[in-house]
């Protein structure tokens, strides 16, 4: 996927002016926090489970090499095949090779963010294979040639009129004058259209929420059932999974599952949580004859041992973005790549480079809401700050910011001179603003005063006044 992250600011400007998007954001914004809060309130052990979740993932990452090898052995014992892929190119080639070998014409797909990261759809299309997204949200985005704007609600930026318009355009075999009375009618139409595609597909591709070393299983968590149809009906099932999805045992996965749905949608448990282990067994009446896991690194192993290692705990629940006031101002597309919101602000620079994704860890107020809801306690603001440190070290921080900071720092290191300078500045601004108490505009303060007045200072600095009071014996 081509990144537009360098244009974050321009993307944000457009997003703020996009009435349809703002309507969708305003509609959705209060929903997730309320649902999560209710689910968490109903499980008194939730906070303890967050510590457990963090510890399970930390334990796994500290022994990731061992668990990956153990898991791979168990996949092969169950008749599956593991394709180890260092890069996105390797992974695309592995998927294409499997599809070509079985002469696949169409491929159904369950929702997978790693698939977006790898650009699987474009790659298959270039080689004459038709990918069909089957998650309702992903399906309409494929019709509209748009990327997802959210990692679990990919199309929540769309409004009902967008759905109707896209369906009329795409489903030309249906009467043009049909009426969608309810949202349910839109969903039913998609259900009918996709049924035929599920049955015709030669290969089904899903992602994975977890990989389990103990059993060699991959786990998907969905509400629609499309992921299960995708992996059950075609002859070949391909799982796309990145290396940090690993957990040791079913019990470890279970503890994380107690956190996942509650953090994501506020459900106690998702509708379908499915553990897949290898190929159709003798006597089974359904299920795939081939089971492949395309295991993707694509930059993650390089995060181990760095200050960004904590990010490998992420279970992609989306709680961070669901609670992020920046995300809900500009929407997911503004972030310009696969992963938006706070987790994207940390992960994207790791995967596409801080030179391209530099805005993302900067576009945060460090309000800390994301960290407070993260089910595995990733210190997201601290990790964003670490990216800012890397940018500063590599002189990627904008020149004006650097020089202002350097000037300020020079004074701030010298309290005596600082007193003199601040006193002069406060006195001047205080005098200029003494009548109205604020400025409508001020040279060099455009960033502030374009949308806000700048309150004027009192005029004295604290230290000037304090010295006066001390001399007068009043303090």
């Amino acid at each position, binding site marked *: 996927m081509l990144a537009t992250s360098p244009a974050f600011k321009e993307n*944000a*400007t457009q997003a*703020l002016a996009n009435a349809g998007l703002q309507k969708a954001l305003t509609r959705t914004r209060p929903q997730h926090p309320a649902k999560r809060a209710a689910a968490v309130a109903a499980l008194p052990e939730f906070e303890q489970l967050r510590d457990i979740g963090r510890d399970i993932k930390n334990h796994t990452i500290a022994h990731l090499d061992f668990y990956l090898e153990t898991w791979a052995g168990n996949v092969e014992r169950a008749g599956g095949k593991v394709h180890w892929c260092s890069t996105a190119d390797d992974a695309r080639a592995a998927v294409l090779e499997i599809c070509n070998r079985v002469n696949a014409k169409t491929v159904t797909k369950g929702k997978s963010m790693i698939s977006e990261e790898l650009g699987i759809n474009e790659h298959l299309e270039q080689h004459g294979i038709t990918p069909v997204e089957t998650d309702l949200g992903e399906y309409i985005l494929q019709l509209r040639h748009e990327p997802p704007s959210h990692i679990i609600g990919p199309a929540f930026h769309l409004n009902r009129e967008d759905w109707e318009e896209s369906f009329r355009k795409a489903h030309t075999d249906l009467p043009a004058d049909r009426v969608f009375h309810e949202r349910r009618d839109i969903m039913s139409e998609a259900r009918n259209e996709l049924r035929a595609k599920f049955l015709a597909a030669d290969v089904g591709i899903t992602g994975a929420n977890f990989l389990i070393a103990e059993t060699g299983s991959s786990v998907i968590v969905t509400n629609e059932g499309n992921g299960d149809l995708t992996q059950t009906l075609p002859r070949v099932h391909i799982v796309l999974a990145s290396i940090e999805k690993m957990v040791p045992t079913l019990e470890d996965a279970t503890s994380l599952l107690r956190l996942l749905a509650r953090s994501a949608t506020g459900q106690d448990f998702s509708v379908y949580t499915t553990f897949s282990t290898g190929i159709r067994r003798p006597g089974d009446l359904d299920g795939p004859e081939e089971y492949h896991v395309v295991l993707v690194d694509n930059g993650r192993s390089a995060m181990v041992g760095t200050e960004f290692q904590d990010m490998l705990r992420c279970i992609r629940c989306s709680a961070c973005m669901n609670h992020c*006031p*920046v995300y809900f*101002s*500009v929407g997911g597309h503004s972030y310009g790549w696969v992963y938006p919101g706070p987790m994207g602000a940390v992960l994207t620079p790791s995967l596409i480079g801080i030179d391209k994704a530099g805005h993302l860890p*900067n*576009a*945060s*107020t*460090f*309000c*800390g*809401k994301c*960290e*407070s809801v993260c089910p595995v306690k990733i210190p997201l603001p601290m990790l964003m*700050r670490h*990216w*800012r*440190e*890397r940018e*500063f070290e590599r002189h990627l*921080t904008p020149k004006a*910011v650097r020089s202002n*900071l350097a000037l300020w*720092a020079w*004074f*701030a*290191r010298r*309290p005596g001179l*600082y007193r003199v300078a*601040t006193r002069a*500045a*406060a006195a001047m601004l205080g005098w200029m*603003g*003494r*009548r*109205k*108490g*604020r400025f409508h505009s001020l040279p060099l*303060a455009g*960033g*502030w*005063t*374009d*949308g*806000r*007045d*700048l*309150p*004027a*200072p*009192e005029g004295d*600095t*604290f*230290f000037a*006044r*304090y010295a006066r009071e001390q001399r007068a014996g009043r*303090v």
Partner: protein
Amino acid sequence: MSQTAPASKPRVALFVTCLVDLHRPTIGFAAIRLLERAGCQVEVPRAQTCCGQPAYNTGDRATTRDLAMGILDAFGGYDYVVVPSGSCGGMLRHHLPHLFDDDPNIKARAEALAAKTYELIGFLTDVMGVTEVQAAYPGTVTYHDSCSGLRELGLKQQPRRLLAGVAGLKLTEMTDPEVCCGFGGTFCVKYPEISVRMVSDKTRDIAATGADTLLAGDLGCLLNMAGRLKREGSPVKVRHVAEVLAGMTNDVPPIGEGRG
């Protein structure tokens, strides 16, 4: 004022914060008054400038460490360090020690300082046991929970408990008093459009309460919210919570309003 202060007065160093120093000294004097009424002996170390957040949050660790060293020297010798800001308080209490992860000696000093650093209102209630204040404020106020104070220092009920004792004051809550106002230090000038969008959501929530006064414990957030309220022509008065609790609202006009 009721209190359970220890017999000998604790020596409290006031960390004024650069914004209060430059912009609204009254908050510093309100802090001194509240601390003295609570039975503290307050001193203001002269060798202080800034907690270092502008550098820290820009990724300039070297400058941040230099400023932190200055803070350790200036504030090391007191019983407590008190800050009329959750954000600067959070910086000293949670972030300062991590700047010295590579130097155990300095880290130990930073941890000792962090352990005795408090935000003003939390210090009054949680350490000095203050339950009541001598102040009156006729009006309906709404309280914004600034992010660092709320999430790094656990300040939520403390200011509300003290405000409940202010004569004539009625508190009415926003729908979401905990959501960020969009200030974010340098964020508000690096991403002004997003910041303005966020503060506009906040001012809508403030207006919906019908309160005539907005209070908070962080001057940065207050400047941001006052700036937007005034741009919108709102009559809502904006003040630091310490001004109200110290009974100093007659000393200075609300933030963003003139004397004329």
